[in-house]
């Protein structure tokens, strides 16, 4: 159940330049979160901006601890990168709807672009046993930008790495990776479930490809948030049915067909 509590930093470590994993002690959330859900954090330090900031849950020990993975992009994340074990956040969570695993599928393909890895890693960790094959496609521009958090290797999950310059893994994008995997499986489209998280443009391409191939696809999206619970109507995402969905409450995981990608990319 969603609640508002205090999260204490257990560990805050740089994975690579500008990207960190943070372990938080927060039993109220660790106890009952599912992959795709997120938390809203406000650092209890001077200088924090006005609003909380949303972060997907990267993993949870199911009891007291939750991990997130974050990239420094602005004020809040830069403050976070300087925080130490013992420091605290005011936290709200778990929030939103997570991924819905489809047990009728034999194959799960998780496609991560850039900092999109956290919810997908949690998905793989939690649901690997539901599928015969689980593949995690990681894409980035270069080897340096590839994000592979410590402890990411999950038994039974196949990792497929793509870099645009070929400096690590295969040359290409996460989308090429997805196309490869979907093609390679040579299976009934109903047997494959795609889940994805990453930049909006990438998600749109993934959605497009899946629609073309008739493969089901769930995406975890990002939109600027304030309340996180559907009260303020800030986090509007253009809906294919017209009007807007709200990322915090209707999402952040959506069936990719629910979103009007064209309208969203224009904003």
């Amino acid at each position, binding site marked *: 159940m969603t609640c508002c509590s205090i999260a204490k930093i257990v560990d805050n470590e740089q994975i690579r330049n500008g990207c960190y994993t943070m372990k938080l002690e927060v039993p109220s959330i660790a106890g009952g979160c599912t992959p795709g859900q997120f938390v809203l954090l406000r650092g209890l330090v001077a200088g924090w901006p006005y609003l*909380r900031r949303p972060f997907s849950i990267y993993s949870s020990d199911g009891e007291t601890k939750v991990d997130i993975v974050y990239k420094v992009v602005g004020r809040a994340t830069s403050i976070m990168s300087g925080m130490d074990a013992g420091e605290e956040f005011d936290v709200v969570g778990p929030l939103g709807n997570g991924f819905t695993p489809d047990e009728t599928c034999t194959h799960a393909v998780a496609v991560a672009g850039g900092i999109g890895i956290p919810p997908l890693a949690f998905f793989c960790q939690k649901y690997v046993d539901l599928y015969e094959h689980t593949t995690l496609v990681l894409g980035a521009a270069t080897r340096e930008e590839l994000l592979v958090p410590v402890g990411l290797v999950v038994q039974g999950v196949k990792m497929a790495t793509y870099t645009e310059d070929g400096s690590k893994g295969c040359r290409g994008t996460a989308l090429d990776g997805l196309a490869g995997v979907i093609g390679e499986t040579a299976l009934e489209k109903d047997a494959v479930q795609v889940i994805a998280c990453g930049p909006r443009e990438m998600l749109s391409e993934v959605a497009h490809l899946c629609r073309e191939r008739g493969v089901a696809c769930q995406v975890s999206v990002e939109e600027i948030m304030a309340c996180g619970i559907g009260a303020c109507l800030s986090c509007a995402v253009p809906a294919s049915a017209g009007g807007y969905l709200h990322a915090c409450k209707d999402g952040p995981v959506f069936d990719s067909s629910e979103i009007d990608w064209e309208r969203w990319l*224009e904003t």
Partner: protein
Amino acid sequence: MNLEVKIGETVLATPLVGASGLFGYGNEYEGLLDFTSFGAIVTKTVTLKPRQGNPPPRIVDVGVGIINSIGLENVGSSVFLGEVLPAVDIPCKLFVSIGGETPEEYRKIAGLFTGSGRVDALEVNVSCPNVARGGIAFGSDPESTYRVVEGVRVETALPVIVKIPPLVAGLEEVCRAACDAGADALTIANTYPAMAIDIDRARPVLGGVTGGLSGKAVKSISLALVWKAAGSVSVPVIGAGGIETADDAIEFILAGASAFQIGSVVLRDMGAPSTIVEGLRTYMQGKGYGNLPDFKGKAAGEEDTGGEE
């Protein structure tokens, strides 16, 4: 100690009111907020027909506050009446904020909501763009304000609260027009027209281009507006804008506010409502005040030698 406030014939248990647009339609924060600290919650502004609202991004954090450009997204009066309202279950009063594009629309929607049982007061959001006058807010001149409120008054026996926009040259005249038309109380003020520009992309950050600034940044401006308004009308004034602590709330009461709204602060701190009400009690205890009228407007009466420069 008695924290009660009367708005029209409605009695609020405390002077703390949840501001329109931050608390959905009433139920969204169930289990998360201590509703017993609240005298009332104001719903998101409801219009006759549903509105989709503005394209994203709809909110931007400017550090000292936030700018929102939701675009009055709401479910519309029928869904609100048929589905939303019956489900509302909070242990404090419920005020419904109403908006429209013409005085006629305000009138109609006021009629619809009267007699629904669960509604304790109407807050008339006159910051909505007056379509007939090129989109300028109804509340920015006394005549349009009068026209809107007059219509609402005719249709309802519920307390009518008029929420005034802040960028008004003759604030007193607008306030008096609202009162002349029958307002039982005024909320002062709505958000401040503001914007942010993404200098890298050389374009406005918000999908709606401009939006409304709220939060800490606007507190001292709203306080001066409340001071001014409280000095020129006799109905209760509900202060709003940047109230984040008990001390802020006390400043508004000393300036003449009978009650106050909080909005943005709840996005940062869900404990704020209880902290504020507790702080208010502590202050009153310390000063020996038994109820709010004991210090309401107490800072007034000094000569104002001028807001320059």
